[in-house]
């Protein structure tokens, strides 16, 4: 048997459904840390990104900070935070790490979504008598939504892949079979865990691709100039203007 069939045998063994490291438990832990981290990151990054996109101020700072944040080594940061916060606050240390990981993608998604809107659309919205608040909520946010969802998609993928390291500090998740298997040289288990993380990432990516498509504003979608869905925003500009 090669290692791949062994990994599948490991995955489908009835042993995977019992005990403290049953796969449903690990899956639940993995999703818990992923969702909590991305939600916290979104609460911080999305309003900030919208503010930057709407006002056009602080863009350079945001690009620089987000770029630098992408270079933070998550594993090192997580272990450092565990040392700083102590063993009783391990989940907090992990969540801070994953929040910092998710922020750059979300921030970029939020402000580029607003930036990509043709200025003439905003001018016409103002010309129609909309207040700044209405311009923001009724024009900018809906038109920027596909790119924001793109940012959420990227953040979720990164966090799902990285939550794997949480098992190193006793938080479980789908990284547990990987991190336990390497020193034992149980490569069926290592590969089995890796397959699960990859499949989870692909499923989440697919779901968000559908969401990203669905949130394209109705007005943009029905525009006659629309040829390819990718260029929906640009094509929509002359039609609405």
């Amino acid at each position, binding site marked *: 048997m090669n290692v791949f069939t062994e990994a599948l045998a490991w995955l489908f063994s009835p042993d995977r459904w019992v005990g403290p*490291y049953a796969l449903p438990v690990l899956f639940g832990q993995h999703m818990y840390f992923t969702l909590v981290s991305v939600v916290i990151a979104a609460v911080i990054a999305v309003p900030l990104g919208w503010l930057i996109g709407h006002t056009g101020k602080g863009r350079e700072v945001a690009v620089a900070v987000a770029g630098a944040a992408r270079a933070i080594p998550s594993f090192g940061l997580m272990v450092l935070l565990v040392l700083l916060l*102590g*063993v009783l606050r391990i989940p907090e240390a992990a969540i801070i790490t994953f929040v910092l990981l998710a922020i750059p993608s979300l921030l970029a998604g939020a402000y580029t979504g607003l930036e990509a809107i043709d200025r003439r659309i905003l001018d016409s919205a103002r010309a129609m008598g909309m207040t700044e608040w209405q311009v923001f909520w009724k024009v900018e946010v809906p038109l920027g939504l596909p790119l924001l969802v793109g940012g959420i998609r990227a953040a979720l993928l990164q966090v799902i892949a990285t939550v794997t390291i949480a098992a*190193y*500090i006793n938080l479980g998740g789908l990284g*547990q079979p990987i991190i336990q*298997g*390497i*020193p*034992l040289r149980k490569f069926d288990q290592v590969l089995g865990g890796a397959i699960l993380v990859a499949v989870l990432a692909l499923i989440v990516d697919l779901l968000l691709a559908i969401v990203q498509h669905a949130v394209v504003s109705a007005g943009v979608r029905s525009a006659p100039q629309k040829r390819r869905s990718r260029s929906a925003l640009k094509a929509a500009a002359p039609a609405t203007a």
Partner: protein
Amino acid sequence: MFTARKSRLALAGGVSLVAALTLGGCASSNPLDAPSEDSGSGSGDTIVIGSQAYYSNEIIAEIYSQALEAAGFDVDEQFSIGQRDAYMPDVESGAIDVFPEYTGNLLEYLDKDATATSPEDVYAALKEALPEGLTALDYAEASDQDTYTVLKSFAEENDLTSIGDLSKVTTPVTIGAAPEFEQRPYGPAKAKEVYGVDLGFSATGPTTLESLLAGEIQVADIYSADPAFQTEDIVALEDPENIILASNVVPIVSSDVADEVSDVINAISAKLTAEELVALNVQSTVDQKSASDIAEQWLADNDLS
């Protein structure tokens, strides 16, 4: 709490390259041979001593080195040569003459199916498993192996001396260790089988000691040579049935020089007790003393220099 010897595989690759270069050099044209020509001793008399990239191992190698030097040998120190995968080829080829090793871990490396666990059995099995040209001298009482360790206060409250006594504890008991401990042959399942002890498991990994001190777990797997045994109020539970793989400090020497160096090195092993090794490690991690200073002091204290 890092399981240092096991989790440095990544380093091994890079270090092995350096080791290959340096050791390759000393095999063909050793610059240290040149001055010794005057004293008349041939190049074959230089004893090459190696060590792992692990501070505790380096201290032991330094002790061997200084003792051999005091006994009149020319020594060449090749320390910090990564992990077993990196240095064993050079030990087997004879490029390194003396290397401080650990009985159980080395036996596991040489023979994956080995079943011996007690110090004597492991040593006997190791002698069998060693490749041609290598000899194991006497092993020391000091060891660097897994333990079932508890807080002293917890041991007193529950009257614990051995692992089996844990079954007397009425509250749930959890053991913390590296994630792979759960499936090791001396893990919680074996404790249940041999001692009838029900233990929960927590993959505390690098925070095992801190988790024990914080009360998150009641039992911890801490290496027996860890400085914490001196600096914290913890005690390792006895293992009368030898479920844990014994891993005593053992000098592995090339058979060519075994007879020459055995007296000097066996005298060291005879004095190297478990407490002594922990104390040596404390001097390195807490007092930040260099391996050579620690070795010099220890040899003087034990009348070996």
